[in-house]
């Protein structure tokens, strides 16, 4: 199986190299769906040029990445193609390892449970679990969206690497490492901070004695402990960043930028159009409402999925890709790569064909409506936003469908597959 992974990586590198050296690469890196103001490679180059000229990269309003990116690419700017390819390969290998762990975990969890009724039809099979990590790796490395993100040199590839590392560290139950990577991911793009609770929940299952309720003093203690380690790492990172340029300009330029959404360049998210339209004096209110979307779902999801932190993490990562202020297709590619982990839910998915059609047509509509709006000037922003709305709807349908399928499967595992009512008819499932 490892040979397969090697083959996959070679294929991934070949495809990337071919596209890097084809005339397509210029056009791809211009796409707003891939390069947001936060992740655009062009802005990184600009920042490094400013730095060479002795000007703070955060002067003006071009650069919104962290000093760590400057530090990395200060030495590697001439090898950027290589760096992004290596980053993608690394992410793939890490996702592979993490998926291996997840598969093992799911298998052990299934073995440890006792089944009251016959549910063998929906149980996991060792054969499918055996191939699961490879499917995840292929879904990430060969996804056209990932390839495009890599070719566009969007720094989103690095964010994905950090998320993958976080997942692997959490799967391996290494508290310190997971805190470090969570801090790194949050430091890079702020939103992963909502993964704090899912990560704690997952680690606590192995580390904390007793039932996981809020009355359990061990759990409270663990939460406190982990949060302190996380905040410690985060402050070390912020301090290092400060010492790199001897200024704290980066805090408003990165985190202020993410939270207050001043740049309304179109992207695949929901923010830009709304805030070009909204009256200035309502802006703060609506910013709060929109940002709340990214954070608010954590609590209800924890209540519902407290026994399944891996799934919780997946749903949370997917929701971030929809509700963050500057989403791009690289984020979408990351959570799409995790879908094979949950392939055993496919049976209960209801809207997969609809979602597939919607996603495909969005893939066609984005470039065309952009062309009509920006180049030929015959369409306008409304057309493009319509495609954005359709894209977000498709993603929400997909996520809620997976959530439904997961809950439904859990229900059937508990009560059996064929459920009869008292008068012997087949019972329908109702969502209330």
């Amino acid at each position: 199986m490892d040979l397969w992974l090697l083959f996959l990586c070679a294929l991934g590198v070949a495809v990337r190299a071919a596209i890097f050296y084809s005339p397509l690469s210029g056009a791809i890196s211009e796409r707003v769906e891939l390069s947001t103001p936060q992740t655009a490679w062009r802005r990184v180059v600009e920042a490094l040029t400013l730095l060479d000229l002795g000007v703070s990269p955060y002067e003006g309003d071009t650069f919104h990445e962290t000093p760590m990116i400057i530090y990395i690419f200060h030495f590697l700017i001439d090898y950027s193609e290589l760096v992004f390819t290596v980053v993608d390969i690394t992410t793939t290998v890490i996702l592979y390892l993490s998926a291996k762990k997840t598969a093992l975990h799911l298998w052990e969890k299934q073995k440890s449970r006792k089944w009251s009724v016959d549910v063998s039809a929906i149980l996991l099979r060792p054969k499918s679990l055996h191939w699961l990590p490879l499917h995840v790796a292929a879904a990430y490395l060969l996804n056209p969206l990932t390839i495009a993100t890599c070719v566009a040199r969007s720094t989103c590839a690095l964010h994905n690497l950090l998320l993958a590392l976080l997942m692997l560290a959490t799967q391996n139950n290494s508290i310190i490492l997971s805190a470090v990577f969570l801090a790194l991911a949050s430091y890079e793009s702020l939103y992963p901070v909502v993964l704090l609770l899912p990560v704690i929940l997952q680690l606590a299952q192995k580390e904390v004695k007793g039932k996981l309720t809020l009355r359990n003093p061990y759990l409270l203690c663990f939460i406190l402990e982990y949060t302190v380690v996380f905040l410690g790492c985060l402050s070390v990172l912020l301090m290092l960043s400060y010492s790199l340029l001897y200024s704290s300009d980066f805090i408003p330029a990165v985190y202020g930028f993410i939270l207050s959404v001043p740049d309304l360049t179109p992207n695949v998210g929901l923010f830009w159009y709304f805030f070009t339209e909204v009256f200035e004096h309502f802006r703060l209110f609506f910013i709060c409402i929109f940002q709340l979307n990214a954070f608010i779902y954590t609590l209800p999801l924890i209540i519902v999925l407290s026994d399944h932190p891996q799934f919780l993490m997946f749903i949370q990562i997917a929701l971030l890709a929809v509700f963050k202020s500057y989403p791009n297709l690289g984020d979408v590619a990351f959570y799409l790569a995790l879908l094979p982990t949950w392939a055993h839910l496919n049976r209960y998915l209801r809207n997969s064909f609809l979602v597939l059609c919607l996603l495909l047509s969005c893939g066609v509509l984005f470039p065309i409506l952009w062309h009509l709006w920006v180049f030929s000037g015959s369409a306008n922003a409304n057309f493009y936003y319509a495609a954005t709305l359709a894209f977000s709807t498709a993603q929400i349908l997909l996520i809620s469908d997976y959530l439904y399928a997961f809950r439904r499967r859990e229900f059937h595992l508990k009560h059996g597959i064929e459920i009869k009512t008292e008068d012997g008819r087949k019972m329908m499932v109702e969502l209330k």
Partner: protein
Amino acid sequence: MGLLSDPQNRERILCFLIRHNSKLCILCYALGLVWFLLLPLPPLSAPTYISENALLPGLVEGTFGGGSQALVLSRDFAAHKDLVGGLPVEWLNKTMTSLGLEVHTQTFAVDLPFPDEINERYHVRGTNVQGVVRARRAASTEALVLHVPFLPEANDQATGLALSLAAHFRKQVYWAKDLIVLVTEHDLLGIQAWLGAYHGINLTSMGVRSSELGGYCGALQAALTLQLSSDVATSIDLQLHGPNGLLPNLDLPNLVHRLCLNEKILCTTQGLLPPQEDNAWWQSMHIMLLQALGQASTQPASEHGLFLRHRVEALGLKAINSHRQEKVSLNKLGRLLEGVFRSLNNLLERFHQSFFFYLLPSLQNYVSIGNYAPCAAAILVVLFLCAIELWAKLNPDKERGAREAAALNQASIPWLSVIGSIVIAHGLGIALYVGPLVAHQSAANYFDLPEDEAVSLTALGIGVSSLSLPHRGSTPQGWIWLKLFALLELGMLLLALDLLNFPLAFMLAIATVPAAVFSQPSHKTASIALLLVASPAALSLMGLALQTELNPHGPPSGQLGGFIGLFLRWLQCLSHSILEHQSLGTNLYPLLTLGLFPCWLQLWHVALWKE
């Protein structure tokens, strides 16, 4: 989303869709077709109006009186044209300078990939002459263009009128934008070279070598292309569409139409008289169909079209001199153009107020995108419905019982044969796109043919021979997967095209959707017959026949009639569309070969699938 998450409702909807699938498909298809036929009627087509208020002050009394000067200039121009045997650059230079314009010339050279037999050219060398009336009180940041294509046999009066108008305009004080009088050689190639040099870009795959252009005037706001070959005219015909179905902002044709009404000049479009009270539906439909066919051909209606690609709103004005009684003098035509340019001079922003996507059943009425989009949507829904049915067949829902579950066992998806067929279809599409350009030279030498015929015959040969490539399925139900894929691909293609070039997409959809939905191995003969009718070659042939039939001036003279004539003309059009794709960037040929042909070939494989 309650509809989608409530399982009982969902079940009901899905069952309904599957049980009544064929009825629903027919209903949607008929709805789309009927809707399209109803488009010229009042609630769907509304009266036109000028949306941009800044254009209205130009509707003032004109003062142009240089008609006789225009005539003298055009006679002079014709004399020098005959003397030089081409565009009299020297004379134009001298005359424009004496009229007080700032003159610049540009030479250009284009090498076509193969000889163009229709226009008899291969290595094209030419010159464009441009005279600028600078606005006295503006900073040359915006400009308007009056474009006159140079034709060896015609268009002398247009040149004369443009020159005398420029002389008149130079004396006026109200100009806020510069005015460029542009005379270009070699019709579309000349104007393309000029536009490319003006904007510093090349929009086609072919290299155009041109000399440096002097006298820049800032962003072009609008352009008019003038064709006038007689001393008097009876009507003005508006030519709208550019390459790939692009249209100018509706305000521009509206403005010209309004000014024509003011000057009491008969104004038409597509060369047809405005619809009369009796039989208005057919007359409107006739005009609309001609516009749709023109857009679907992806060729520009006149030389103005290439301006549209550079985001310059442009219109072609063709003066027609027929046997009608009321004649329009050059003075009157001049006043019309004066009014148009004065209106355009008042523009404060780019054209943006009115529609960019529309159909014109007449110049008094328009159909906006919101009104014609439903017919395209209805036809696309047919594909979606058919795809849903196939999907339901492939994924029998356990809850719905064993009705379809028995049909298939899911474990045996014949990946190899399905993916093989998909790859073969797309590979052949690429071969069809590249082949004629690569192989025409050797084909021409081997069979001793003219090169353009060799091009079209190579394309035809590749297309026909690709029908015989292997397409055998390993499992009985593999065709469902293949058909599902082909339907989705066709749907995406038509969706994309609906936005870019609605008439083309609609015509393709009307013909291909029934064949696509119907094709299945169990009705082999009928599927094959339908598919043959809906093949890209047959579709383009039918489009050509329809255009010939509807064209008010009949087929081009000196051509054979009947089916043989049509077929020969189709071969000519085939090579011409390859040439235009290479030289002007029209996209009919790549669209048919890289987009439609692979979809069609997959459906062909579906129909021939061995069960």
